[in-house]
């Protein structure tokens, strides 16, 4: 009887502690979620609010003086549309090339018949673990004529060892009988890849495609090192210039506002409005793509972890 009472008392105490843990978790994670969401939200509402209020930091929680002029004006900024095209082009071309090469090499490295298979596999994978450094890399790119060249964004990232490892692991999980059957039917190495393997390994290719696309879209360092021609600047680089070179932004402000006579204080472009609007333009593809493809991302990190 006494023991039962003791257990009951203990259970109440524990129950209290458990609910405290629960409540604490809810509070702290609401805070974390806020810290991650609010900056995006803050910038977004500022791009839609009256620019004179936004300039003075008066727009904090909701839109004040809704207008869409910022987004219309941003299209008129010289070079920005060009940067957008470059970013889209490198993302589309770069990611497709990376994926198809990773799939093909991932498949080829599972073929027992490949001459010196293990050696070449190691030759590729070893590059994950060393790096010559930025100066030697820059000199190499210059010698190859890939500075101030669009293909300088594409070729160095085309063969990615990590993605090849992911593909190889995936191909290995598929019954070998599938390949053997096709071989008996007389299909060659390439035909087996295009007609048998490609449809089967689509899930891993989707995962890699998204990773590679995000990587291309976000890439900044290669523009910084290799490109001086502003026609080849990416969105990331142009945005960086807008933040860091207040003087060039001021020039932009006067250039864009002089084109519109009817610009009032609320819709006239300011350094802040241009900076924030461009930020929204650069971040939007990621924010739209990420939640939809989240499961692919998670799958990617898990496959990587199994290997790693």
């Amino acid at each position, binding site marked *: 009887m006494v023991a039962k009472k003791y257990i009951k008392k203990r259970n109440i105490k524990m129950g209290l502690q458990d609910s405290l843990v629960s409540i604490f978790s809810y509070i702290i994670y609401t805070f*974390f979620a806020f810290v991650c969401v609010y900056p995006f939200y803050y*910038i977004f509402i500022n791009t839609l609010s009256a620019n004179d209020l936004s300039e003075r930091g008066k727009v904090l929680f909701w839109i004040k003086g809704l207008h869409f002029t910022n987004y219309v004006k941003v299209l008129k900024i010289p070079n920005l549309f060009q940067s957008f095209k470059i970013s889209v082009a490198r993302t589309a071309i770069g990611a497709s090339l990376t994926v198809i*090469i990773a799939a093909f090499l991932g498949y080829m490295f599972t073929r027992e018949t490949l001459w010196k298979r293990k050696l070449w596999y190691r030759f590729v994978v070893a590059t994950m673990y060393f790096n010559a450094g930025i100066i030697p890399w820059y000199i190499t790119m210059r010698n190859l004529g890939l500075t101030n060249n669009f293909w300088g964004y594409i070729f160095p990232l085309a063969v990615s060892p990590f993605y090849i490892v992911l593909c190889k692991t995936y191909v290995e999980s598929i019954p070998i009988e599938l390949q053997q059957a096709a071989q008996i039917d007389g299909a060659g190495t390439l035909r087996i890849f295009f007609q048998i393997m490609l449809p089967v390994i689509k899930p891993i290719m989707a995962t890699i495609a998204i990773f590679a696309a995000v990587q291309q879209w976000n890439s900044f360092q290669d523009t910084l090192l290799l490109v001086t021609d502003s026609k080849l600047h990416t969105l990331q680089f142009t*945005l960086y210039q807008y933040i860091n070179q207040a003087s060039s932004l001021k020039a932009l402000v006067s250039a864009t506002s002089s084109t519109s006579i009817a610009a009032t204080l609320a819709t006239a472009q300011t350094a802040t409005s241009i900076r924030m609007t461009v930020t929204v333009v650069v971040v939007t593809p990621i924010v739209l793509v990420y939640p939809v493809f989240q499961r692919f991302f998670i799958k990617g990190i898990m496959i990587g972890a199994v290997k790693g």
Partner: protein
Amino acid sequence: MNILKDKKKAQSYLEFLYILPFIVLVAVFSYYPLYGWIYAFFDYKPPFPLTMDKFVGFKWFISMVDNSTKVNQLLKVLRNTFAISGLSLMFSWFPMVFAIFLNEIKSRPYRKFVQTVTTLPNFISWVLVYSIAFSILNSTGAVNSILMSLGLIETPKMFLQSSEHVWFRMWLWLTWKNAGWAAIMYIAAISSIDEEMNEAARIDGASKLQIIWHVTLPSLMPTYFVLVMLNLANFLSNGMEQFFVFQNAFNKEYIQVLDLYVYNLAMGGGGYSLSVAISILKSIVSVLLLCLTNAFSKMVRGEGFL
């Protein structure tokens, strides 16, 4: 029989021909740059081509230690690298604890929501992070506006143009960007814990905290161990992008880590050869660290991570 053998051999060479273009790409973009290491032994001034009369042997390596201003500079850079990597290492448990308590949120949609929004920053570039930081931290940004309206400060604080707590603030931004993503690995590990273990502990009268301490935490330790080892292996490599975008005249003393220093030295000061010399030393130490941590991991868990 011979024909069959020849055919097989031909097939294996043919398959090699298929992958040859890609092997060449790897050789050109990953191995050929290593040749550039010879610039560390020359007095290289671009765009003039290398000639033998510019050969200086180990001059740049020696100059790192025989000139007291350079030694001081290098020591400062190393101090920053160690401080920032050290902070990351010290708080490397954070994503694990993040995952553990996230699991205590019983409402599934809310848990998914928190997970999604905290993972998002991982997928934006450092330039965007900087742009966001600039927007909320500049003199008219959200943080200053809120602090001033609450009466906590009188005049706007210049958060980005200050040399105070640079290492800690860099760690905060890194955590803001990466913690949610790093937690995913632990979340998966938690969901693979045998539910019967939790059940048994609950029947024995364990509280939530006790279950976390005695069941969840021990089963996450192997994952944590591997990640700490990887962290150690990358101790000298903070990357340069984060520090490049956040650097300015005010915080340069504290923000310049090894990777950024190598860049600034070459691109800002024209010290190509010295910069290559430093990155060679860095690469050698990094590879050694990788081998050491891998060997240590083999010793402790019976398998490495390479």
